[in-house]
């Protein structure tokens, strides 16, 4: 069993937290060792799963096709993804899908540094599929839950003042690498869930 590398779990994260992340690291010198993106709430992510509304698609390639997709989450924040010749299935989905559409995306976080030193985070999709609204709502609640769990863990590790020495290595790493209060992400969670409430309200009115 130990010989088979374990599959990396797909983290659930809203776009605002995902886009705040910039620090990546490996846990071994092996060339093929997984690369992790450090989430500001103190968790490592080698893979993410997200469901949202595909807003725009564009072929941004110069020589060959290179598709960019923008997926918006309930807070209005966007995930950016890029698929080229090495992600043929995802690229053809971005080519064929007509925005707006609900999509589920499984992919790997990627970072790149711009000329002026900014680090941008994007997703290299493994798969993109069109899904329904119920799947999207389920993802919002699930991502809210997972994010809250990370926030609570972060707070328990760092104490009331938020500056205690964390035992969890990823929480400690997040304290070291980022100066981002996790309170921001709690508010993101509340907003995302409230947006579902608003939708319920609209539906309720429509029923009258």
């Amino acid at each position, binding site marked *: 069993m130990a010989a088979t590398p374990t599959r990396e779990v*797909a983290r659930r994260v809203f776009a605002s937290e995902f886009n705040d992340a910039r620090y990546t690291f490996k846990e071994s010198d092996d060339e093929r060792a997984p690369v992790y993106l450090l989430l500001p709430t103190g968790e490592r992510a080698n893979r993410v799963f997200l469901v949202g509304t595909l807003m725009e698609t564009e072929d941004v390639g110069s020589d060959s096709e290179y598709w960019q997709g923008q997926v918006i989450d309930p807070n209005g924040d966007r995930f950016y993804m890029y698929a080229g010749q090495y992600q043929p299935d995802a690229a053809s989905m971005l080519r064929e899908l007509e925005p707006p559409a609900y999509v589920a995306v499984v992919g790997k976080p990627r970072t790149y540094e711009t000329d002026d030193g900014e680090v941008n985070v994007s997703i290299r999709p*493994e798969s993109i599929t069109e*899904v*329904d609204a119920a*799947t999207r709502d389920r993802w*919002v609640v699930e991502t809210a839950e*997972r994010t809250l769990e990370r926030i609570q863990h972060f707070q328990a590790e760092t104490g009331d003042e938020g500056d205690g020495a964390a035992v969890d290595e990823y929480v400690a790493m997040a304290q070291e690498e980022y100066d981002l209060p996790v309170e921001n992400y*709690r508010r993101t969670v*509340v907003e995302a869930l409230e947006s579902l*409430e608003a939708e319920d309200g609209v539906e309720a009115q429509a029923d009258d």
Partner: protein
Amino acid sequence: MTDLRTHATEIHEQFSDQLDLSVEDVEERLDTLVNEYKVPVSEARRSVTNTYLDEAGMDRDELGGGGGNERVEVADVDAPEEWVDITAKVVELWDARSDAVAQVGLLGDETGTIKFTKWSKSDLPALEEGAVYNLRNVVTDEYQGRFSVKLNRTTVIEEVDEDIEVGSDDVTVEGALVDIQSGSGLINRCPEEDCTRVLQNGRCSEHGEVEGEFDLRIKGVLDDGEDVHEVLFNREATEELTGITLEQAKEMAMDALDTSVVADEMRADVLGRYYRVTGPTFGRYVLVDEMETLTDAADHEAVLIKARSI
């Protein structure tokens, strides 16, 4: 408690049903042998046990390996080469594939099921399907992470007049279906008897080039954001999951002159959706018996209350 007292207590337990004796009686006999006649403790114990066996008119085999076996439930078996006692129902009897094996099958109790093997040379009475037995002195074994028990020459089989509600080993996992692995969709299996290996480019690793038989399956990954579970849908489960029957899959492949279109179509239909599946585990897979698509709106109220409170 002295050493002798411990031995005396164990011996006393073995005979308390058959003989009217006290722990002190047993200890006195042991004491005489060990302290007066300088007999080693193990020999003294054997001798005293034999005396009582004679008195009770019993065979040594009936003792259950000198006693002291742990009485376990099926789910407790987690290490090989342990001598245990177990009370279980014969859930299934399978065909023995070797003359060395008298009976092989599945035992079960409230906690789950476990394979058992009974050797021909042990010369034990036959177990009947559906009957409940008290099995003393069986040995645990392990193969590729799966445990079993072996009945042997010293095993005592006692039919018990009761029924056991056999518990299930099934696990339930849920999450988003984040991957459909290679080897999924329309596959070809070796037609040789008892083979069923999946062919690679028309070849079976055991029987070489053969005319394959089509089958459907999905090797998928369910991910809930914390854990990943590999799940295996057999033909029936794949048809239920995707709505694509084996016949339709064959037609699709025929039209496209390519079997991979089937898996592609399945990916588009099911990837990224949430499912809950139930079934037994085999190796690292959950074999899907039952499935449910999770389309109900998740309860966001409770999460919102939590989010506002921290």
